[in-house]
């Protein structure tokens, strides 16, 4: 692409097996820029593994995963990931964000500016000098989001980011995600929470036992699920918001 954009991402017949078990069983799909994509499925469906395959933390056992443009090693990354449990360094809040920028090779004074903006975007600017590890769960996850977003990546992967949080913290995180979405970042989020999927997603990619079973715009998925597994999932999951 002329502007170096890494989307769309293409998966072609991707499988992943570990410990004798096939976790991802021949998935082919294309992730394009624009609408936020929710990877939906029950626990054990393979969502987390799929996320890690797309982000590049795991290599597929067979099949191809290709971005449209290659990232240069050493250049700031164009995709970032937020995990279910935030992993923060034993440093201050702002030092954690600065670390990500330092790794990406961003120097001062630009780094300081980006750190400030990132913290403001998630509402943590007032805690900039607090040790990161003494923050509450919700605040830590917001910090992880700020860190991921500080370089304004093209794609933001989120692996069940609110699964460990209480409802009010969950609401805060969802607000931040919605803001990033509005700012133009492609959101790819894994969740098993139907309400969240409905609130944040534009399209649903539904996984069942490692296979891509259904893909549809969000309203269509919930009102007229095409597959039996999706229908069962929608019925069976409790409507926690």
């Amino acid at each position: 692409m002329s502007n170096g954009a890494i989307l769309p991402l293409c998966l072609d017949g991707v499988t992943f097996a570990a410990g004798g078990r096939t976790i991802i069983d021949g998935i082919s799909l294309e992730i394009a820029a624009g609408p936020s994509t929710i990877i939906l499925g029950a626990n054990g469906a393979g969502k987390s593994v799929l996320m890690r395959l797309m982000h590049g933390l795991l290599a597929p056992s067979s099949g191809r995963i290709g971005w449209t443009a290659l990232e240069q090693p050493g250049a700031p990354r164009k995709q970032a990931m937020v995990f279910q449990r935030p992993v923060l360094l034993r440093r201050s809040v702002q030092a954690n964000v600065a670390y990500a920028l330092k790794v990406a090779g961003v120097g001062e004074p630009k780094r300081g500016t980006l750190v400030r903006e990132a913290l403001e975007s998630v509402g943590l600017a007032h805690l900039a000098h607090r040790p990161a590890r003494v923050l509450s769960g919700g605040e830590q996850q917001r910090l992880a989001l700020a860190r991921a977003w500080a370089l304004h990546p093209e794609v933001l992967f989120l692996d069940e980011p609110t699964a460990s949080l209480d409802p009010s913290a969950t609401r805060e995180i969802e607000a931040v995600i919605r803001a990033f979405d509005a700012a133009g970042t492609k959101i790819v989020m894994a969740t098993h929470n139907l309400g969240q999927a409905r609130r944040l997603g534009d399209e649903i990619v539904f996984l069942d036992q490692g296979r891509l079973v259904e893909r549809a715009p969000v309203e269509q998925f919930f009102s007229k699920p095409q597959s039996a597994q999706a229908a069962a999932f929608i019925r069976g999951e409790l409507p926690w918001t």
Partner: protein
Amino acid sequence: MTEALTTALSLLVTFDPKLVEIVLLSLSVSLTAVGIAALLGFPLGAALAVGRFPGRRTLIVFLNAFMGLPPVVVGLVVYLLLSRAGPLGSLGILFTPSAMVIAQTVLILPIIAALSRQAIDDAWREYEEQLRSLGAGRADAALTLLWDTRFSLLTTVLAGFGRAAAEVGAVMIVGGNIDGVTRVMTTTIALETSKGDLPLALGLGIILIAIVIAVNAAAYLTKELAQRRYG
């Protein structure tokens, strides 16, 4: 026992100059050895935890095994190296504090490397995905983890210091226990014991233990304070 305690106290209270000289030498030799061992051992431990290269696992097994190196064997090997008849004899540092520092560094390097490898390995398990996601290479990750595990590493350093301050076999052989030059607490205790002056030897032993406890207490408090601040 009481005679030993009174001997120890009277030596301490009067700041007996010979005792002060011996204690200062002991501390400077062991602390220097710990410092050098940390400079070499931490990067080695980090490389073993984070890196992937052929022979890595064999090296880890050897390092773990060498934590239990007998000090007298280390002393003998270093002596043979530094002796005039040996390969490094022209350095002329046998029977000087420098030789003692070298011997103790060799003795505690495996401890520091093996324990720091363990601490960083545990941390790597926790941090690996996140650091790779941020684009950190292995070298960057190793340095980051070294700093992040600094409180555990402090304990590692203390373990090394304890081992160095308490050993007598290595410093005796490479130092020669020369009065006023290479006589440290442990070799003095050995000497007084062999002279049959057991109360004096025991008194010195009590002082040595007290010093090691004091160092540990100070480090523990520092660690507590820092952990409360940084989480």
